[in-house]
């Protein structure tokens, strides 16, 4: 039973992680790409951490709290990074939904 739960969580987490990166790679402009990784950092890593929390709490003595700490960090920091990235993008005037310009040294 527990094993099923664990497997499910692990798979879900990995999947979300993958989806996040997929979004990052495939979406067409920066602002949309910004969405992708948020899934990875919240849902993806979240599931995995719950999984490992369950895993270690059940097999080793005492419940392990590190995962909570990691989750806390991620959940606090994710929005900030996203916010800053968006700010930077706006500041640099990245146009939305435009095809990515050729990557050449800026003068």
């Amino acid at each position, binding site marked *: 039973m527990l094993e099923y739960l664990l497997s499910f969580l692990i798979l879900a987490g990995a999947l979300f992680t993958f989806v996040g*990166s997929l979004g990052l790679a495939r979406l067409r402009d920066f602002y949309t790409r910004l969405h992708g990784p948020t899934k990875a950092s919240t849902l993806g890593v979240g599931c995995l951490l719950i999984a490992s929390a369950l895993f270690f709490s059940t097999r080793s003595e005492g419940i392990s709290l590190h995962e909570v700490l990691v989750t806390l960090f991620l959940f606090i920091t994710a929005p900030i990074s996203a916010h800053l990235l968006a700010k930077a993008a706006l500041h640099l005037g990245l146009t939305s939904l435009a095809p990515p310009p050729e990557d050449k040294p800026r003068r």
Partner: protein
Amino acid sequence: MLTVALSIAFVLVGAAVVLSAWRLLRGPSAPDRILALDTLYINAIALLVLLGIHLGSALYFEAALLIAMMGFVGTVALCKYLLRGDIIE
């Protein structure tokens, strides 16, 4: 069962790493690269958690914790450089 899930998960996360790395390489803009780097840090966390479960050792959580922290600091620093140039003022 669990091992199967783990191996599948490894494959998925590996794929995620490749995709993020591609974005890191491709850019095109600086924020894209920073975002990619941030994502790679997230992927690394996932990787570590999986490794921890796989090896059944809890010694890797500090690494995960610190990656979470460092990823954030790095992203902030890089973004602030784009915004302000001078990041400590």
